[in-house]
């Protein structure tokens, strides 16, 4: 009895902590152009989501554990990146024409770079905890949070479409190849997909530009203005994951087809299509899901090559340029963004596992 009450009270306690955490996050996010209403919406929907999850016992505790783990991971990543950055030779204000030492010292003092490393580190942590990522060193006067929000929306759109595209192409292709196992079409699809995995995306992008922009003149080759501009970058970004998902789907489907419940389904006279969609597909989604967690984070956080090739004003470009510029706050902010994305998408994937395969239960 006591045990039951104790476990209940931990649930309630953890739930309140969660609520408090998200409250704080939403309030702070609202400093950066996120409308107040939206943040309350996120907050409310989160509460609803957790309430519905808490119906099955143990899940809230599991979520709580995962979120605490996520915070620890993000903290360690922030620390590692901070330290690695300071190991790098050269600083943000080393320019080709060296600044007079007095001026340089003044600039460094303005950004707090003259303090001891430990002090800088704790200052940084304190600010990051309330989502203040500081101001960029190179883009003077612009706050990192503002820059991220501005460019991230472009990368997010691009990545999201590419993610959808890779699923829309990859899964049907994999299913098709598996259903025609060991025929010409299977080999054909697999050869295509192996080239999709093997070829570097800057080559694929260049070929697409030459063929569809220069020769055929169907799509614009660069910029990010209308929906026509989206086509080539989205396709280039989506080809590799699509090919990978196709191969993954095919091999899992071939595995699943051999299992007993498929034989049962055939024996009871289900049509091949019904077997394929109701039994095979749902059971072969687990490896694809595992792959899609890191994929989602990677693809949303922008791809440098695509953004350079197609002159897309996204966040991947900022990442590389900030490292070469030694723009410490920007690098740290973008790294944190990526880690948060990764943690969230992995969490999502874990929740989806139990949807596709009810045998997998959360927290067990």
């Amino acid at each position: 009895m006591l045990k039951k009450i104790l476990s209940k009270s931990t649930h309630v306690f953890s739930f309140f902590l969660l609520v408090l955490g998200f409250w704080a996050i939403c309030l702070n996010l609202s400093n950066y152009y996120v409308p107040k209403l939206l943040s309350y919406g996120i907050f409310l929907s989160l509460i609803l989501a957790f309430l519905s999850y808490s119906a099955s016992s143990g899940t809230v505790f599991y979520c709580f554990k995962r979120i605490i783990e996520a915070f620890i991971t993000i903290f360690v990543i922030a620390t590692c990146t901070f330290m690695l950055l300071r190991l790098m030779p050269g600083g943000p204000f080393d320019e080709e024409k060296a600044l007079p030492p007095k001026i340089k010292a003044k600039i460094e003092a303005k950004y707090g770079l003259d303090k001891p490393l430990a002090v800088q580190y704790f200052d940084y942590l304190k600010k990051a905890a309330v989502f203040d990522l500081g101001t960029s060193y190179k883009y003077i006067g612009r706050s990192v949070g503002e820059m991220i929000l501005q460019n991230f929306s472009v990368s997010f759109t691009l990545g999201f479409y590419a993610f959808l595209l890779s699923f829309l192409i990859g899964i049907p292709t994999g299913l098709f190849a598996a259903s025609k196992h060991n025929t010409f079409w299977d080999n054909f699809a697999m050869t295509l997909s192996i080239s999709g995995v093997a070829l570097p995306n800057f080559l694929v992008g260049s070929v697409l530009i030459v063929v569809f922009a220069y020769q055929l003149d169907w799509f614009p080759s660069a910029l990010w203005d209308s929906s026509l501009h989206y086509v080539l970058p989205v396709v280039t970004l989506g080809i590799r994951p699509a090919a990978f998902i196709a191969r993954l789907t095919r091999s899992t489907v071939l595995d699943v087809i051999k299992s007993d419940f498929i034989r049962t389904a055939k024996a009871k006279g289900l049509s091949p299509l019904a077997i394929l969609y109701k039994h095979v597909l749902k059971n072969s989604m687990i490896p694809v899901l595992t792959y899609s967690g890191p994929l989602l984070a990677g693809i949303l956080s922008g791809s440098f090559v695509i953004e350079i090739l197609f002159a897309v004003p996204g966040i991947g470009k900022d990442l590389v340029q900030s490292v070469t510029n030694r723009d410490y706050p920007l690098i740290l902010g973008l790294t944190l963004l990526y880690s948060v994305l990764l943690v969230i998408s992995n969490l999502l994937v874990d929740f989806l596992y139990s949807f596709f395969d009810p045998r997998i239960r959360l927290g067990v």
Partner: protein
Amino acid sequence: MNHLKKSSSLWQDSLKRLKKNNASVISFYFIVFICLIAIFAPLLSPFAFDKQHIDFILSSPNQNGFLFGTDSLGRDLLSRIIYGSRMSMAVGIITALISMLVGTVYGGVSGWIGGRVDAFMMRVVDILISIPSLVLLILVKVVFDSVSLFEDPELKALTGMLLALSVVGWVTLARIVRGQVLQVKSLTYIEASKALGIPSYLILLKHILPNILGPIIVLLTFQIPSNILTESFLSFIGLGLQPPYSSWGVLAADGWRSMRHYPHLIIFPSIALGVTMLAFNLFGDGLRDALDPKS
């Protein structure tokens, strides 16, 4: 006794299966061919990789005696591709070997010891995986570029790249090796050798390692092309090898800038890169099917 078939080991069986797969066999010979080119590059290439022919800048293929033409500084493209294979293959193979070694030892120890040590070691891996690999690559590369480990000028130019790719690469390997070790560890023959009092390191070396070697080799063959790809990507964005050294990525990046007017500059390096990537992937596929007949 003559009617009994000679027994063949698991490895011999796998080799037989591999030989039946035409695509893999062809890919294998192609890889050997590229490796030979890379090793004997100084003998094979008509010119040195940084030799400039000022009078024949940007000549088209098969003109003025340059089979693949020349680039904007008048360097023979064929020679640069041949020398590029040296750099690209060196990056691919050396980093794959380093990351395999580190990953196998780390994953093996983690899986074998288990418990809290395992949990801690895997948490470290989780964290390394969640740092964006591009940031990690660039940071490690910049930090170690100033360190000089090698005397050889070509390897010296590669130091940062080799270390960066290894740092990023060993993590996934460690994870998979750990999973394999955990699987094999629970089998009865391991229990039997424990009961016989065989020391742990011998069990690891003599019983576990041979049984997980197949997946490790397959991973290795996939790690090589992915490293070559990452190197070419880094060179493409200008953070890789610095001129005058050439790798396929450097050449493709050079060619891309003048893609419209001098297409030969991007076509030839792309073919070299693309075909090699395909060969490695096809060979890895065949190897996986041969070593693991179940899948």
